[in-house]
């Protein structure tokens, strides 16, 4: 009986639903004018975009839906002020503050209790919501796709466009679904999932696509784990990564400051429940990965695609340039390679659950004497909550520095950095040349792997601690 089939709508993907619900109008050619629900700025580029708009006498169309935060170059040492270690950095903070105030947008300033890394505080405050479009001049905005939002990074010009018009002019990307089936083994984390995808399919593997993450191993993740997974979609060259919202998403958001309240909340949840790919929805590309086969990952080169399981060896086809920079040889095992520093933080891995898991492994232990180790909570809220649980004491007693929240040493802006040429195991997302300081050799990994390595003083397999 196919009689009624004619009247059934075509099954659509989550991405189709997010996209179609925001198309204001088609543009000549294949493009569309797409409505933008939220814009989030930060002090590294916020003043530039806001000042440029003001000079052109273009007001922010709806200031109530534009937010800004000081996270990128703000000092993370205790007792901080507007002063930063980055030469000239203070001007970025004061100019962003002045421009934000003049534009009438909401700023989470240096010592605001809600301050933190943009992709940590936006969910904490319920600014990102399922089914919304959210853009920020920061490539890791895709992190917020974990909430079933279409969230992506843009440049300054597009940030101006989004603020002035409430829209962006876009071409619809192709759709991809990456399905992680099975169950993660002990000691294996969402960071290892996304690093595995990028290592297998390349740093350009997602080019031209918007990527939905799905499958049992994704559904099993808590919201913070989902954010870690979506965070590195940009390292896959995807426009964004996102996950269909579910009961965990709604539970996380309920009662948050900017989340809907009362009857709006119930109406919103009913509509959000529709935000899933229909059975039979078509994708331009589909990838399946067996989550149970994933092991703790660590990068060896200068692109996130240069990564492997912790017990592996540097591949024979590794690029000479990367190897020279990283001072590694083909066939060399990474496990056992001595490190100089360990870093836990960044929009990838700085949330309370990350710090809880790391501290559980650190408790009662001391890191190797020669390792400089730093933990930077992702937000002031995360810091307070961690301190209330005694997590700061565990980190400190183990030999870690415990900082104020911010992007900190995820990238080097001319201020604080690791020692020139030193080798760092880091929970961040980029192992580019000199990303964390002049000549610094970054190995990206999960918080668990960073802790295991800090304790051993060399790159180590966390599974040996379990």
């Amino acid at each position, binding site marked *: 009986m196919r009689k009624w089939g004619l009247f059934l709508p075509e099954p659509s993907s989550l991405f189709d639903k997010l996209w179609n619900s925001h198309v204001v*109008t088609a543009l000549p050619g294949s493009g569309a004018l797409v409505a933008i629900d939220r814009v989030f700025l930060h002090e590294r580029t916020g003043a530039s975009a806001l000042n440029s708009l003001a000079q052109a006498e273009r007001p922010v169309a709806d200031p109530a839906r534009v937010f800004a935060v000081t996270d990128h170059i703000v000092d993370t040492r205790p007792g901080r002020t507007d002063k930063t270690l980055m030469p000239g950095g203070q001007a970025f903070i004061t100019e962003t503050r002045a421009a934000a105030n003049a534009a009438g947008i909401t700023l989470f300033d240096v010592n605001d209790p809600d301050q933190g890394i943009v992709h940590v505080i936006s969910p904490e405050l319920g600014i990102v919501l399922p089914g919304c479009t959210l853009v920020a001049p920061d*490539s890791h905005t895709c992190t917020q796709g974990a909430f079933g939002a279409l969230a992506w990074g843009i440049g300054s010009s597009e940030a101006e466009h989004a603020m002035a018009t409430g829209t962006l002019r876009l071409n619809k990307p192709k759709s991809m679904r990456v399905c992680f089936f099975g169950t993660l083994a002990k000691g294996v984390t969402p960071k290892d999932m996304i690093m595995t995808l990028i290592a297998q399919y390349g*740093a350009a593997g997602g080019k031209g696509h918007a990527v939905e993450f799905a499958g049992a191993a994704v559904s099993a993740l808590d919201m913070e784990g989902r954010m870690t997974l979506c965070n590195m979609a940009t390292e896959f060259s995807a426009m964004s990564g996102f996950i269909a919202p579910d009961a965990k998403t709604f539970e996380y958001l309920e009662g948050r400051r900017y989340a809907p309240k009362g009857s709006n909340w119930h109406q919103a949840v009913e509509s959000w429940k529709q935000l899933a790919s229909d059975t039979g929805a078509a994708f331009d590309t589909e990838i399946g990965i067996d989550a149970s086969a994933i092991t703790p990952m660590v990068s060896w080169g200068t692109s996130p695609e240069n990564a492997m399981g912790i017990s592996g060896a540097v591949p024979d086809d590794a690029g000479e340039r990367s190897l020279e920079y990283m001072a590694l040889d083909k066939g060399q095992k990474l496990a056992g390679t001595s490190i100089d520093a360990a870093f836990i933080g960044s929009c990838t891995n700085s949330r309370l659950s990350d710090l809880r898991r790391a501290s559980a492994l650190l408790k009662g232990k001391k890191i190797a004497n020669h390792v400089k180790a730093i933990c930077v909570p992702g937000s002031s809220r995360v810091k307070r909550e961690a301190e209330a649980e005694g997590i700061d004491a565990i980190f400190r007693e183990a030999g870690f520095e415990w900082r104020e929240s911010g992007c900190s040493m995820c990238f*080097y802006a*001319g201020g604080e950095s690791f020692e020139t040429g030193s080798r760092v195991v880091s929970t961040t997302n*980029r192992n580019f040349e000199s990303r964390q300081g002049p000549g610094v050799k970054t190995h990206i990994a999960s918080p668990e792997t960073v802790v295991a390595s800090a304790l051993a003083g060399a790159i180590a397999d966390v599974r040996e601690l379990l």
Partner: protein
Amino acid sequence: MAEPFTILTSLPMPLIRDNIDTDQIIPSREMKSTGKTGLTDGLFAGWRYTEIGGREADTNFVLNDPHYADSQIILGGTNFGCGSSREHAVWALAEYGFRAIIAPSFAPIFSGNCVRNGILPAVIDADAIAIMEKADSPITIDLSMQKIGIHEGHSWTFPIDEEAKAMLIEGLDAIDLSLKMADDIATWQEADRAKRPWIYLGANQ
């Protein structure tokens, strides 16, 4: 508003490495003010100088090769412009004098930033780029024809979406274009506000 892009003839500068990230195009430490200019000294700073933070030219780096001093085109590798969304990477390239980048693929944010600043991101396969590198002679990019030629008989076409092409050729400002659609946007928002009141924070909190 960027200068209109029509036909460009220039000796291309080869920088054929995969995954050239925007930290390499302009390191964060070189973004010293909130302005959009004064960035040329920071362009490829990590590769261009003998030491980090220094200004002594590393003569092994192609940008310092006098042969390419007037190049307005870069030949690049896969996933060009990956990493940070910093538009400074494109501002620095434009200020230095580059008008086109030819690569097998581009990172999406970088590609959009290029178009907004009058730089053409032309996608061409690696084999063709290798031929252009080997020829080491001027190439001509005709954007309206979407064609790149090195000499008689050697030419390639490249894809570009209609709007990006129009923006580059006419030097249009995207915000101006969209502001002209203010009525469409207002109508859409009114209907959307009824469906999703929680999105509109001013009125419903």
